[in-house]
């Protein structure tokens, strides 16, 4: 299983909480990573385009009043990817904790 880039992981994690539009994603990613991952629109939409081509997310045009904005939503496929990544990280962490604990002794 290949690792997911931190940026992709964060974007998927944000969308797992519910659909969001571009700026919403940027902001949520910033918050979640405690300002460690800062996105700019050009970069973000490049990622979003790739993820939606891979079928991890899909797009809906949302309409509020006369303000049209594209919203992104995670797909089942995307959730699976996210879950896999979470498991991989967990097992990684577990092993890490073990070896750290072993060192202490």
């Amino acid at each position, binding site marked *: 299983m290949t690792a997911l880039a931190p940026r992709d992981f964060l974007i998927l994690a944000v969308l797992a909480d519910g659909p969001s*539009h*571009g*700026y919403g994603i940027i*902001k949520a990613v910033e918050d979640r990573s405690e300002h460690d991952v800062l996105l*700019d*629109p050009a970069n973000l*939409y*490049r990622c979003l*385009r790739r993820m939606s081509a891979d079928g991890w997310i899909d797009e809906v045009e949302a309409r509020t009043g006369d303000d049209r904005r594209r919203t992104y939503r995670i797909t089942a496929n995307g959730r699976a990817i996210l879950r896999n990544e979470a498991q991989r990280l967990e097992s990684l962490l577990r092993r890490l904790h073990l070896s750290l604990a072993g060192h202490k002794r």
Partner: protein
Amino acid sequence: MTLQLYRALIRLLPRRVRERDGEEMARAFADQIAGARAPSAVRWRALIRFPLVLALEWRDALFAGRVPAPRAPSRGSRMESVARMIRQGARGLARTPVFSLSVILLLGAGVGSVSAIFAVVDHVLLRPLPYPDADRLVVIENGSHSIPAVRDMQAMHSIEAWGAASTDNAHLTDQGEPLRVRQAVVTVGFFPMFGARAAIGRLLQPADSQVANTAVLSYGTWVRVFGGDPSVVGRTIRIDDAPITVVGVLDPSFALPEAIVGATVDLWRPLDPAAEYMTKRDYWMFNVAGRLGAAATIAQAQQEATRIASERAKAFPRRYTEDGRVIELPVRTLRDAMTGRVERPLRLLLGAASLLLLVACANVTHLFLARGIGRSREMAVRRALGARTRSLAAQLLIESGMLGAAGAVLGAVIAYAGVRTFLALVPAGLPRAATVTVDARVLLFAGGVGMLTAVVFGLMPALRLARRGSGDPLRDSGRTLTGSRGAHRVRRALVVGEVAVSLVLVAQAGWLLRSFIRMSHADLGFRTSGIVEIPMSIPTPRHANGDSAGASGAEWHRRMQAIRESLARTRGVQGVTFGLTMPLQWVGGGRCCWSTRPSFAGKGPSARSSVTHPVSDDFFDLFAIRFAAGEAWARGATIGAPYPAVISEQLANQVYGGANAALGATFAMDQADFRVVGVARNTRHYGADQPYETAVYIPANAMPFAPDNVTMAVLTERTDDGLATDLRAAIWRAEPKLPVPTINTVAELARRDSAHRRFDAVLFGTFSVVALLLVAGGLAGTLLYMVSVQRRSLGIRLALGATPRDLERGVLASGVGLAAVGAIIGTIGAWFAGRLIESRLYGVEARDARTLGLAVSVLMLIALLSSWIPARRAAVTDPIESLRAE
């Protein structure tokens, strides 16, 4: 990085990406800025990261889309190999960061300065004016025209629509403090001709000209004075004490046709059918624009205008001839009228920036050459491993293309900052300056220039490589005694070219700097220090038809006297005078206001008109104007005709052939008689570069009318911040309702007078300093390189008995020699370029040899200094060391 710039950058993305996500990206960016605690950090991040994404998107668009991800290294697809070359190139460039950064910086500086100037030139000169059928709009020149004259013109068949406007000052008195506003009286055709629309309410209609009590506000006035309150439409306001109904507000997008109405208009009024200007031919007040018929040409219009001019000169010879010649009606395109004045200076600047780019390119070539030679071993190895010449050359080209792209991006950033600096520095009066921006066109220009220069100058080493036979470099690289002869020739030629081009720049900068200095020290013929000028409009009651009721002369003089005395009592004021106009008041354009033809006894009416200056008694003392003969009239001795008068030396010479001969002469002017009591030395009333006027000074109380506009001049040693406040307070003590919009020191006016020369000097000066630095770098680099490849031969010479001194002298000589050849070529170039700036010079002859000599010396000095380090390097060559090194 504004949203606007971000949108411009988005437009550079591949079309598929742009159409899909461009809008969303711009929106997210705007939200991000709005929501950020530190917007500038967001801006910078976006600006820095965008180029990378841009490059990736283009790579995807060009390569990835067509090749379905063949991961295995194959020789098959060309696109794949290009992608590989890009990766390889990026790695290669990252390995030589000093080289890459230098190239990017050089390209950025050159491309940036050219693009900044291009942004201005493009916006001011190349874009069509923002009016419907803008290319068919013309103006009828030769100053302003009377309404009857406009009616004459309307007989022209080639012009299908007309618009005329006249501007003056008015007072808005019922909105808090009294305000002086600029009002334009326009004909019915004016708004439609310039495609104006109303933001709210309506524009002027033919019916408005029946009663003339309506007005349209400009958008700025509506916001500033009325707080953007929409209920102003239909309200009645007081203008010059008359009730006027506001019918609408002009749309903010309306661009003022500055050639017709000047740079500001606050209020728009219809023609007044009862006003004297509707019928009198002497009211030369209206600037006239017309639209050519769809099939008409400007030549046809000119032909008709010429016919009308000669017909009216026959009908009214006294009015429409001067010096026996018909007063013509020149037809000019509106674009010419608006931008003709600045076209040449702007093109000159573009030329200067291009020269700078050229010098930067020469240095880029130096760098590429040095690298190309350094890499010939690498290339040879790769060739030996089976790479074809073509693919090696392509590799080099791709690398230079990448550098070009990076340079272009940096150039765009510099251009963006440069345009702002330029607009902050530019003296008032550059038309359309307010709306200049760096937009997609400018970015495209910057990108094109950057890529082109990088590719062209990167191509040279590529071609050299391609031409070279196989195998050689591997064998001889680093072992030749003198390096490649061809490369040296190119490098020498580059240095010579750089020096020559820089000399042209430095010489021009020198000439412009000298003329700026001359102008700042010009003798204007009057005192410029310690004087403050206060232009003011005296509100006079008006008839219902808008004409001045002509405040009675005595009343007007009483009020002026009161203001004058009140000012004189202010702390630190040593003298006060007033007149219709004061020296330098019209700096930046315009002329005032009263010119007549005095009729000298025994000589008849003078052939040319003279400017008449009604001034109060202290005028000549206060401005320290010297006399060629006679003296100023005695104070208070101006009771009745013939009034005493002072004429300018210019006029005295023209009429009497000398100052003394004019003393005592009498003349008649506007139904009054005058006697010449003094001849004043010539002054530059309108600015240091304006010609001397034939001028007549008369006592203010000999004026046959009470003018609306006068200017007070105050002599004081005070320069503190409280001065303006004190002077305003003093005026308001005498005239509580008088607006006092501006208080200028004469010294400040004189500075404004030379502002565009300062601007020229600063800009050309900056360009030439940068050029000199580049020359120094290029020359030092070339010599250092030559010394390093000649180390062996230098060592041999030392071993054969040459002293380090000899070697040092040899290097110095070759540096100075190269510079000398460049200087000779540059001198010839500067000689021709001098022609171009001739009209911008003041008090300096075009091609002034002393300046040129100085420029040559500066350049040679720089050449000497930058040869010094390489010369030292040669002198410390260790013969054993250098021979063993092989």
